[in-house]
């Protein structure tokens, strides 16, 4: 194999897209490692603390696209304190020094400051695409820097970030010479936006395909924008608040009639039911429809819209997300197992589901498993923690067991409801390809967690909250964690002693204790081994311990 001339290997490597394949290839021999590292263009770092940024830049000097993830997933639900970490700064600084040819940056759950954005904007002459997902720490000033200095910017995609509003001038910072935008998403911005500047920007960017507006954009402005850009493929409407007796409404219908390329719709922030009728002309062609930010749309109108969009394509439906409208209680409009069973019988191609509901039964889950064997992502959240099957009063072990047995390609699973150790036995036995498992308020004993750790060979992320798993489970097979990206355990039964033991045995892991109580200011040594750990985050790393951890994070 080593007789292969480098040019041939280089040529072969070009065909390798996936990170996994490339990672595997680079372990064959030094020659292949070298060829691979110099040819890798897309670099993905799943945990920003798993490796030091400088090492990444040194290994992949010709990188064009970098993707980094910061905080653990449960940070989405306020379980990780605000200043835990996940700073973008070291990454942007290292890239500015080591990879000035960088063209794309994607950050998820990280802290990004305006200074970071300014450095980014000034450091990469070929920069084309910035995607920030669930980040925080920056304001519209940072966006202004991006708009001003990134010549040739093609994509600015801000998804569900917390952005401080320092005014609307940022959009006007796109110079007149900027004509290259393909995708612009500022739906998460809370403040006003200069509508004139936006309309002019849209008018001079003929390649614009994806545009997601925020709530501040009026219907009149939306109309003008769509008139200028009828070739849009993906649209997030701004405020769709209008009375269907007005001129504006009729104009909007006509405008939508001309948008023949629209395949994806979202937004509808303030839309009342009558506004929806304006989009009926495009419904038949939709491949994606997101109404999750439109709580005002009620029953019949919702059904009509869905029927128009989905009815004929129902059998092709692949992904569905049903969010709770009423966090606090059921009411008469509670979503139950009936809805899920109905969907499963009509949509056999369903492969990705997120379903919040008031209750679920084993029978329903067994039916769903039979109807939809192609699930790769299955996330079920019964709103009341630990709720049993209401018909039989039994745990939901058998239901979820049916899911993991039937869905052989399941990669992601979230459990809820009343569950015993048995469900974990089933998961360990059958969920061969499971990569991510989220558990809450489930299990009886350490055995549950051990079944999962022993059985799921491809497990990468395990996140657990409020389960009776303790040190025995944690320490049963410590080498397992080296094969995983991370483990999160909060409000479980692990003790400081158990965590210390884990840290001692596995120097390749960072064992972080997040301690938010008053005691956090005291030294760790004052705590005995029996002290229960509130939040534990364990991850493999070649970067050593963190240097940026706040006081309340102890790294053992």
């Amino acid at each position: 194999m080593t007789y292969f001339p480098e040019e041939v290997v280089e040529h072969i490597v070009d065909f390798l897209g996936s990170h996994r394949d490339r990672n595997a290839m680079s372990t064959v021999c030094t020659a292949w490692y070298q060829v691979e590292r110099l040819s890798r263009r897309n670099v993905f770092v799943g945990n920003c603390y798993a490796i030091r940024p400088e090492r990444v830049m040194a290994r992949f000097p010709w990188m064009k696209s970098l993707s980094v993830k910061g905080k653990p997933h449960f940070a989405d639900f306020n379980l990780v304190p605000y200043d835990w970490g996940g700073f973008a700064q070291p990454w942007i600084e290292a890239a500015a020094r080591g990879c000035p040819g960088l063209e794309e940056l994607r950050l998820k759950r990280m802290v990004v400051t305006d200074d970071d954005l300014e450095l980014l904007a000034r450091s990469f002459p070929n920069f084309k695409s910035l995607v920030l997902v669930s980040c925080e720490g920056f304001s519209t000033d940072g966006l202004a820097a991006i708009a001003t200095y990134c010549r040739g910017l093609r994509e600015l995609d801000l998804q569900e970030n917390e952005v401080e509003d320092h005014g609307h001038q940022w959009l006007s910072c796109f110079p007149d010479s900027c004509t290259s935008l393909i995708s612009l998403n500022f739906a998460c911005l809370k403040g006003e936006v200069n509508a004139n500047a936006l309309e002019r920007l849209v008018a001079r960017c003929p390649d614009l395909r994806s545009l997601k507006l925020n709530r501040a954009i009026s219907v009149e402005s939306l109309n003008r924008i769509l008139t200028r850009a009828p070739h849009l493929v993906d649209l997030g409407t701004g405020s769709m608040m209008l009375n269907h007796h007005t001129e504006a409404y009729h104009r909007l219908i006509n405008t939508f009639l001309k948008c023949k390329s629209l395949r994806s719709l979202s937004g509808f922030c303030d839309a009342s039911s009558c506004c929806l009728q304006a989009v009926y002309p495009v419904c038949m062609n939709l491949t994606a429809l997101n109404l999750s930010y439109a709580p005002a749309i009620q029953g019949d109108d919702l059904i009509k819209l869905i029927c128009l969009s989905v009815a004929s394509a129902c059998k092709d439906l692949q992904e569905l997300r049903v969010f709770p409208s009423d966090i606090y209680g059921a009411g008469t409009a509670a979503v139950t197992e009936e809805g899920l069973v109905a969907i499963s019988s009509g949509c056999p191609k369903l492969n990705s589901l997120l379903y919040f509901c008031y209750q679920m039964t084993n029978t329903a889950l067994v039916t769903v498993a039979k109807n939809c064997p192609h699930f790769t992502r299955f996330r079920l959240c019964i709103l009341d923690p630990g709720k049993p099957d209401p018909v039989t009063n039994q745990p939901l072990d058998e239901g979820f067991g049916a899911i993991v047995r039937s869905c052989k390609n399941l990669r992601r699973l979230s459990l809820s409801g009343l569950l015993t150790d048995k469900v974990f036995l089933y998961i360990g036995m059958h969920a061969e390809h499971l990569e991510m498992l989220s558990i809450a308020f489930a299990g009886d004993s350490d055995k549950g967690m051990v079944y999962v750790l022993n059985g799921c060979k491809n497990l990468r992320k395990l996140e657990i909250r409020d389960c009776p798993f303790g040190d025995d489970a944690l320490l049963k097979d410590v080498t397992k964690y080296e094969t995983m990206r991370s483990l999160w355990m909060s409000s479980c039964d692990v003790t400081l002693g158990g965590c210390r033991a884990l840290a001692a045995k596995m120097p390749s892991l960072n064992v972080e204790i997040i301690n938010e109580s008053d005691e956090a200011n005291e030294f760790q040594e004052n705590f005995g081994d029996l002290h229960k750990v509130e939040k534990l985050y364990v991850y493999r790393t070649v970067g050593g311990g963190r240097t940026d951890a706040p006081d309340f994070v102890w790294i053992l």
Partner: protein
Amino acid sequence: MEDLDNLKATELTLGLPGIDAPEKPSPASATGSNKRSNEECCLPAAKKQVVGWPPVRSYRMNSIRVRKMEAEDSTGIYVKVGMDGAPYLRKVDLRVYKDYKELMEALNDMFKCFSLGGAEGHEESGYAITYEDKDGDWMLVGDVPWEMFISSCKRMRIMKGSEARGLSSST
């Protein structure tokens, strides 16, 4: 416990104020925390707010809460209106009218086919317009400010004859 309360007062949280998060949630227990928001009082006894549950992103949770509250403010308030002697009731959307005068005109219009006399003033024709409030009491329409009326009115009834005479106001 005192320290815990003080800590909570300064704790950063993205939830709405008044929503409490006990440190160690136990879903099966029926005990609740001492501090409860108005919304929580309406819950069945066993429910309590748990940190980070349901697992909905704060971003989404906040925007849905805010918008749902706004949406509820702007949807119609439909109340039944019955008239003594009329074979069927009607329904009106109180949001459509901006004051009592508009409401009266609309009701006159709706029920004129049933009235015996003209619709000049309800005293002369012997009718009084009443409404049932949130406490279940029957009140005369017109006493309280319009906004207060529409937020407390559950249903209306147009009374006639002897009952009406006693209630007629001297507007």
